[in-house]
């Protein structure tokens, strides 16, 4: 048995955006080395180097996006779907960096490593969408998860941040174990870890079905942890609340986008022929997730916890499209996650501005009277809240329409009905924030200072512009994400 390296399949274009980010991550670390107590300037450049890396990766992404579907030796793929995911991840990373510029130095001086890790996280997330082999997928997952465990514990003086990191790490390690076990069982059931190979074997009916199904179940549990589906969600509120807010903002979108992208690709590319086995369990998971997420969010007093439960609910919405099993579901999820990046990071940015110096959390009370004291912040928050609740003509609306359309297209009409009903429940807690801001009087006049800075303002401007413009002219982006996934045999 002789294995030779076939250079023609060594298609670097597939991982070019990721490589760009890695290069810039190294640049960030290199710049950090030159910072001394006397001359801290290079350290202050690191966010801008990281941002330049994000922009450069986006440009590279644009330049590779025209190509046809290309494979990297069956381990990774570059299709519209991967390119689309890259944009979402880069958007979230860019916004996350903008949010971090003023915030991170307050809690941890080692900003160089912070930005390097952020870029490496993004690299791992992007690989999730490109992975076409369970091994690649697992490694990508580990890369970004490991980085996020560390980032969420960045504030070492805060017990809550440390607790978040430990909790995230333990449960994350647990989910990785599920993931690896699931992948191993699928390998045992089909004899391959490559998506196309798995599809081939299952299509031909050669798979060892009990092993395959057990593998799928464990894999779903692993993904469930990452995208926080109920009952694998218990870490979400604590980590979202405890982690530094810019990290929360970044990971709430990035993790979800990356894990869902991989989830869709595994299910639709590798396991479409087992659809009968996984569609109904996923539909039920979606219903439970939407129910728990929405109803728990109703009861939260902390804005960050409210957003955490809302993100669980949103995971449920996205899952409806996957349970439908139609290829449009992947496009819908991408578009939705794209809009979600603007709205959710925007909301976290406002929450961050509301956090008092030193305090780590903003309560609902903090929003009271904001419409009077800080009309612009209140307006922005209102836009994000309406957007998240799916109010047209903001971006979130079309995302939801596409998701539920995909569920209907997959024949899951009852699921779409349930999802729509939960959307109405969800509106209650988003509206409560708006009601607090506009209908109530400020609780504490003295604490109405808002932490703003130029980078944060830029981030907020991008987020609000995206929420509104993608909402009014969604066509371009829908096109960009249409028929995105290179399906098996398609």
């Amino acid at each position: 048995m002789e294995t030779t390296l076939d250079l023609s399949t060594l298609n670097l274009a597939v991982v070019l955006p990721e490589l760009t980010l890695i290069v810039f991550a190294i640049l960030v670390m290199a710049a950090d080395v030159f910072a001394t107590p006397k001359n801290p300037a290079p350290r202050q450049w690191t966010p801008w180097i990281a941002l330049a890396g994000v922009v450069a990766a986006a440009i590279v992404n644009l330049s590779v996006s025209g190509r046809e579907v290309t494979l990297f030796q069956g381990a990774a793929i570059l299709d519209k779907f991967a390119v689309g995911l890259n944009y979402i991840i880069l958007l979230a990373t860019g916004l996350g960096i903008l949010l971090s510029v003023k915030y991170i130095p307050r809690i941890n001086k080692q900003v160089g490593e912070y930005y390097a890790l952020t870029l490496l996280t993004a690299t791992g997330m992007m690989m999730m969408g490109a992975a076409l082999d369970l091994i690649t997928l697992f490694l990508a997952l580990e890369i970004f998860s490991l980085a996020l465990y560390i980032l969420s514990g960045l504030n070492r003086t805060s017990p809550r941040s440390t607790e978040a990191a430990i909790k995230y790490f333990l449960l994350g390690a647990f989910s990785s174990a599920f993931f690896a076990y699931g992948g191993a069982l699928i390998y045992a059931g089909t004899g391959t870890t490559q998506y196309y190979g798995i599809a081939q074997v299952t299509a031909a009916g050669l798979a060892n079905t009990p092993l395959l199904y057990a593998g799928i179940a464990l894999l779903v549990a692993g993904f469930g942890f990452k995208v926080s589906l109920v009952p694998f969600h218990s870490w979400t509120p604590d980590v979202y609340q405890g982690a530094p807010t810019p990290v929360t903002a970044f990971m709430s979108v990035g993790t979800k986008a990356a894990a869902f992208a991989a989830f869709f690709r595994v299910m639709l590319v590798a396991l479409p022929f087992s659809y009968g086995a996984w569609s109904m369990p996923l539909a039920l998971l979606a219903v439970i997730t939407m129910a728990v997420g929405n109803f728990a969010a109703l009861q939260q007093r902390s804005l960050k916890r409210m957003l955490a439960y809302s993100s669980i609910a949103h995971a449920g919405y996205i899952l409806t499209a996957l349970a439908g099993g139609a290829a449009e579901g992947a496009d819908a999820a991408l578009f939705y996650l794209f809009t979600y990046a603007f709205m959710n990071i925007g909301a976290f940015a406002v929450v961050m501005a509301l956090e008092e110096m030193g305090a780590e959390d903003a309560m609902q009370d903090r929003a009271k009277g904001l419409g009077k004291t800080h009309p612009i912040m209140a307006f922005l928050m209102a836009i994000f809240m309406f957007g998240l609740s799916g109010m047209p003509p903001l971006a979130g609306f079309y995302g939801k329409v596409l998701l539920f359309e995909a569920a209907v297209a997959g024949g899951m009409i009852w699921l779409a009905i349930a999802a729509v009903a939960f959307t109405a429940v969800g509106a209650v807690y988003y509206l409560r924030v708006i009601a607090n801001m506009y209908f109530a009087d400020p609780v504490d006049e003295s604490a109405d200072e808002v932490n703003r800075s130029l980078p944060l303002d830029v981030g907020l401007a991008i987020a609000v512009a995206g929420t509104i413009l993608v909402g009014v002219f969604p066509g371009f982006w829908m096109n960009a994400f249409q028929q995105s996934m290179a399906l098996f045999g398609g």
Partner: protein
Amino acid sequence: MSLPEMSALFPTLQEVIFVLFALLIAVTSLIAAMAPNLFHNALGLVATLFGIAGIYFMLEAEFVGVSQILVYIGAIATLITFAIMLTRGMMFGRTSAMNRQGLAGAIISGLFFVVLLGIVFQVPWPNVVADITDGEALIANLGALFVSTYLLPFELLALLLLVALTGALLLARDR
């Protein structure tokens, strides 16, 4: 009763060794998880890893087995042990490994075990396995695969290490 029939009643030597290793793994991993002293936990972990290496050897995956011993026992477990021994409180302290959720955890893992058991009995295990090439060719093959089919995962591993290093720096360095 003929000899082969009679011998079928008795476990083969391989089966005996497997059961021994399995028992070792089960018992020591319980120690690793539940012993009240952290040092005992660590020792349990070492033994568990050793047992898993044994299973690898039985599967004729010598390379993986050796790596397991070298990396996990030789490096990681040693590191853990050192870290514990250097910290008095950890070395001699006694903390319960149980909390209020012990019962729920036991029930859930018990259920999980039952489910796995069900799968084990349901799976039509193949009787014939593929031929395994001799050790040296296997390792050569493995090496070749790392730079061909699995080049990307191999490089990703490097990236993972980079992340771990950077993260360790971020966590451990003085503020």
